[in-house]
């Protein structure tokens, strides 16, 4: 068996090797989302423990948060989830241009969310509401912890928004290069699932920090 034959043989095997299993891909994605829920689950557990321990102080500390920005960001994320879902629907109906447009809208909304978050956090920093600040050190321990939890949870969520945006950029490129097509769009669907998770976690963070006051 000459070298070229061996090489051809291996190449053939490699082609055969790339098999497609959309159900498997989605199953893997759901498992991954499950681990994401548990990652945040640890934080939700801590939040619950401290909320029970420092009930009154959490109550008071929450009044400092800006419900307006929080509500606005909730609307932004919910809308972005919708545009994401529509982008997949457009792809299923072979409307590539529309799908790209909706995907871009999702990204712009995500960026809007982060810009709001930036202004919200900067305002808090200016008033000295950040861990280790003199303002917070003088407050009761429960209020200090409220901000500890607030920055940990919304911070981790913001990182997930950034990760989601990065994924969406890749999806955009994949669609333009036709590696996501109306017959093979499981990558886009999985990214959508991830994006909905990011949205869903915010749906829980919003009342826990902004509304329970």
């Amino acid at each position: 068996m000459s070298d070229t034959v061996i090489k051809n043989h291996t190449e053939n095997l490699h082609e055969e090797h790339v098999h497609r299993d959309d159900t498997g891909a989605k199953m893997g994605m759901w498992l991954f989302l499950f681990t994401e829920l548990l990652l945040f689950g640890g934080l939700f557990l801590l939040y619950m423990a401290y909320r029970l321990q420092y009930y009154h102080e959490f109550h008071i500390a929450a009044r400092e948060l800006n419900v307006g920005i929080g509500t606005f960001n909730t609307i932004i994320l919910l809308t972005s989830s919708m545009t994401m879902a529509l982008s997949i629907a457009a792809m299923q109906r072979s409307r590539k241009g529309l799908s790209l447009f909706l995907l871009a809208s999702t990204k712009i909304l995500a960026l809007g969310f982060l810009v709001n978050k930036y202004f919200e956090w900067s305002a808090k920093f200016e008033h000295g509401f950040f861990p280790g600040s003199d303002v917070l050190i003088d407050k009761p321990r429960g209020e200090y912890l409220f901000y500890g939890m607030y920055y940990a949870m919304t911070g981790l969520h913001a990182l997930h928004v950034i990760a989601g945006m990065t994924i969406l950029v890749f999806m955009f490129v994949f669609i333009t290069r036709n590696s996501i097509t109306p017959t093979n769009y499981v990558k886009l669907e999985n990214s959508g699932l991830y994006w909905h998770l990011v949205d869903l976690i915010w749906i829980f963070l919003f009342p826990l920090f902004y509304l329970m006051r």
Partner: protein
Amino acid sequence: MSENSESKPYINFLQAESKHKGIFKWILSTDHKRIGIMYMTGMMAFLLVGITLGFLMKLEMLTPGKTIMDAQTYNAFFTLHGVIMIFLFIIPGLPAVFGNFMLPLQIGARDVAFPRLNLLSWWLYVVGGIFAIASLFLQGGPIDTGWTFYVPYSLRTGTNVSLPLFAAFILGFSSILTGINFVTTVHRLRAPGMTFFKMPLFVWAIYSTAWIQVIATPVVGITIILVIVERAFSLGIFDPALGGDPLLFQHLFWIYSHPAVYIMILPAMGAVSEIIPTFAKRTIFGYKAIAFSSLAIAFIGYFVWAHHMFTTGISDTSRFIFSLLTFLVAIPSGVKVFNWVATLYKGSITPGAPLLFVMMFIFLFSIGGLTGLVLGSLATNVHVHDTYFVVAHFHYVMFGGTVMIFFAALHYWLPKMFGRMYNEKVAKWSIALIFIGFNMLYFTMFILGYEGQPRRYWDYLPQFQTLQIISTVGSWILISGILLMFGNLHRSIKRGAKAEANPWGGKTLEWTIPSPPPVHNFDEIPVITHGPYNYGEEEAK
């Protein structure tokens, strides 16, 4: 059948060419078999580092007071020994090496469900390893918190804590991705006809383990990240000075780290369920009982974590409940042991090296398991808490359990992985040395712990010296046994006798293909019509 496949020329996975050259043929390969071997290489290197640290620690304990190192170095050594052995060796352990290599073969698949994700897991493992090692040499000095990273000390110490913690996080991520991959593989890629109850028991064990990896690891991931963030920004979440509760750290840590010991032991139990039928030439006794006991251990293991915290001041009610739940784990574990022994009964036993390792496992693991009951009951736990008794128990179950089966699996599957046989005589000598050294080293620790020697102490009272010396000498015998075994395996891989497709007369699918396996495992995906260990049918004929 084996002769037939031997005679046909084929390209095995060790020779296969790809578009990459040199070492990149391996480190960029998505072949599950190559990834398994790459994990094995990495883990062997870390195992040797861990052994060296353990050896030096035992040497330090030869005499009271300072022998070869100062107390701070000893603190760093026991921490690193734990971190390396747990996060870099035993948690990836059997799933990363034999799960990767054998799972697709045993279910009749050409690869895992996500080959590229599999390669990413390996890369994350390497990056985690590099971070852990790099932290030793950076400003601040090596971590000295113990492998459990308990707060508030891990928040206060000036040593390098954040980098090894981040390494543990990355390794956890690698473990999660492997778990996702294996669960999906088992669900999607079984050969036609292979129902869940026709799967080999090793596959069942890997499947249960993969679920624990997916469910438990994220919790420790977030806990570790919080400690890092806490050190950088003082969030207060685990810092008692700022209102946080250090006990919550322990809860979150053990919510993962207790199930993690089942990540370590379950795959080993799976490998035992493969080796015993093959070497006894009998169908496994109680197939379904063993399969379900894996799931039961995975499930109950999730609800016992607070038995690590009996002396922390948690309430009596919760201590009572956690103690009770801990005892429940003994039931599925016992089910397994009795089924293994029943399989051997009236079997046609070949006492090859893998089976001898398994016998050693049953002996050592039973001691480890029974002393686990001593630790699980509240009254005795308080007496031996944080003593050498715990260290001995842990090493009996983890080293005597998992690592012995890791060694057994190395011998059992070496012919399949490399197409070479090991030297049986040398293997048996190494087993004898390991058995004697192991018991000298760790059994003395049960006595020392019962008499009151605390764990992690650099110094000890003069009356403990006799036992400490026996223990240290035991470590020398143990290590010489392990080195002999590695020498034997290494030599066999290089120039051992050629192995046939099925040297042991195994019945699972990996033995139906040539050794080493062809690049894509099966020319034709087999159709499964019977259970995995159908020795009975042949006898009937």
